């Protein structure tokens, strides 16, 4: 009884905080648009039926539609590389060359609303030169954690360290609201870069299985996969213009859903995200058939951490070890 009362008090406090942050966010965005500092703001809105949806704000009067609450789960960084949202960078630079199009959407700055965890994926995009940082206005909000409809904190939020839920100021342009206080959590008092030990439990659980058991477990999941590619398309780091799974000639992996091709799909995607994935959890959330995709990517992240002492999403200047080399890299395996 006491427990639930406490939770209720915490939930109320969270709501008060998010209401205050929402008002501040709307004001910030109104100002940005009024002084034409940005032409587009990618944020959260509310559909007519009460669902949180991505919202694309262009006009001052639309800023009041911006939503901020504990259900703002989406990682909006995904839209920063979407040509149908921010325009095609190549077309944009062509336009610029012709000296036209400065007033056109696509020619100014874009603002994006992020949580600390989303911000980490933006850091990776920066390090891979996929965004022109100077043309972005990053609006960060300290986050009390996102919850499901029953008010339960999402798994990824339980292990979120303080320097992620309170975004690092040097990584963003505008901070909206005061830093939040969160009680408990697995990584209270730690920082994102030193919490390595904080929870690869889910991965170790699977590692403890025999290879045959692991194979059976994953094939069970992969058999369900519809190859809808929601995991890939919702991923902020799957920005390739042409994905290897979409290539027709040669066709590397059959698009027909079956265990073998689905397995190839998921494993190849995991390799492509190794040392890059920041565990925003969007793939797992989007999956209609409940494949625990975070575990695949977290396994890769764990290996990269152990082998290279590298964690993705901390430093926009740092290259992922798998796309970089150093002379002192161990080379014994070459012989």
């Amino acid at each position: 009884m006491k427990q639930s009362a406490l939770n209720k008090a915490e939930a109320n406090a969270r709501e008060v905080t998010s209401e205050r942050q929402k008002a501040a966010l709307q004001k910030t965005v109104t100002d940005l648009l009024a002084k034409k500092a940005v032409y587009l703001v990618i944020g959260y809105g509310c559909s007519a039926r009460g669902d949180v949806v991505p919202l694309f704000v262009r006009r001052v009067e639309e800023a009041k539609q911006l939503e901020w609450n504990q259900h703002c789960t989406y990682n909006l960084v995904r839209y920063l590389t979407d040509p149908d949202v921010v325009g095609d960078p190549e077309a944009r630079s062509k336009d610029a060359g012709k000296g036209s199009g400065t007033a056109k959407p696509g020619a100014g700055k874009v603002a994006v609303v992020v949580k600390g965890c989303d911000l980490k994926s933006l850091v990776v995009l920066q390090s891979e030169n996929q965004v022109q940082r100077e043309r972005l206005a990053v609006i960060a909000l300290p986050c009390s954690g996102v919850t499901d409809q029953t008010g339960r904190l999402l798994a990824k939020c339980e292990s979120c360290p303080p320097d992620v839920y309170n975004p690092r100021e040097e990584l963003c342009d505008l901070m909206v609201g005061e830093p939040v206080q969160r009680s408990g959590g697995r990584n209270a008092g730690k920082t994102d870069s030193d919490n390595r030990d904080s929870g690869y439990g889910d991965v170790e659980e699977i590692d403890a299985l025999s290879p045959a058991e692991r194979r059976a477990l994953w094939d069970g999941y992969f058999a369900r996969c519809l190859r809808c590619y929601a995991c890939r398309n919702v991923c902020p780091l799957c920005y390739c213009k042409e994905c290897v799974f979409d290539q027709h000639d040669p066709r590397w992996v059959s698009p027909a859903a079956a265990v073998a091709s689905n397995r190839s799909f998921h494993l190849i995607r995991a390799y492509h995200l190794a040392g890059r994935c920041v565990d925003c959890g969007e793939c797992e959330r989007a999956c209609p058939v409940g494949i625990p995709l975070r575990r695949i990517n977290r396994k890769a992240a764990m290996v990269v951490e152990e082998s290279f002492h590298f964690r993705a999403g901390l430093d926009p200047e740092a290259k992922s070890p798998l796309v970089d080399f150093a002379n002192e890299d161990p080379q014994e395996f070459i012989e």
Partner: protein
Amino acid sequence: MRLVERKTLSELLNNRLGDSQIIAPVEIEGRLYFRQLDPAEGLAEVVWPAADLRNGHSTPGSGPEGGGCTKAAPAADPLTVELTVNSLKEYFFPRRQELYEQTPEGIIPRPVPPEKQRLLVFARPCEIRGLAILDRVFLGEAEDESYKRARQSTTVVGLHCLQPDRHCFCTSLGGGPFDTEGMDLALTPLEDERFLAQAISDKGEALLASLGGKEAGKAEQGILEELRKAAEATIRRSIQVPDSQTMAERFDSPYWGEVSRACITCGICSYLCPTCHCFDIVDEGYLRLRCWDTCSSDTFTRMAAGEDPRKQKHSRYRQRIYHKFSYFKENFDIYSCVGCGRCTRYCPVKIDIVEIVNGIGKAAAAGQAADRASGGDRG
């Protein structure tokens, strides 16, 4: 109409497991799916419908990411859904279907599956209406042999839908939670582990005869009627498709850019849809096969030389809407949508087909483009 004990039905299904394929809803990690039962497992996995349906299957769509806008979300919305994640279409139009193999001896067609008799159990009216729509495609001018066989070998034990959820809108498309079209036998779960069973076809008549049970009386008729009214009253959504002229006028509207902007162009809506039927023909080595494809994908209309008439996502999203509510209607005189709500329920960014279709009429027609819609908006 008869009163049938769950036990009797269960015995009948058990007896059929040996010589028939049974497809029924099962629960996997909190979500419901239609699955072909493994005879070795018996009926252990089957999720039986109950009179009280709030038994807690999660709705990923309205889970973490759904709902939540403090003011607008109606608190009474059920958090559970009894509809399976997958539609029934994969049992007639498989995700992956081998067609033929090229060998040095020539082309060897894959045999059309010699289907055993099949029993679809606890299929809801919207599912079955979906099959009726697919029939128009696969049993029309060009008959699809494997689809035809699958359909012919199937007996449908339908289920009246007692608890539609907040995404359902079947009643505005000519269906209804108590629709019996396409069923052989229609079941309504009652309390005390009993069902009201109604034979719809001769096949169903035969099934009902083997189930026995006592003839239902006036009282049961009354219950059925009440349940029907209650179920229909739960459906609060209604899709209003504009007339064909309005549809034609809005084709080039900037509206499509607006409403599709958040779309991540995945295939969830098409692959879970009971009526989407587009496919691709691909080769795996020397094997030629047919597999599901989706118009939301940017490779769907890409041609061999690389040109793609639907490069921007608004044109792909628009295609999905026009195929369902314009072209299909022209060709087959029916909308290719049953109102099951899966596309919205499972959309990762909650794109809402009802809101979008209902908004077409109010959208600016081509040429009336608002200032905001120029340039990058239209891609």
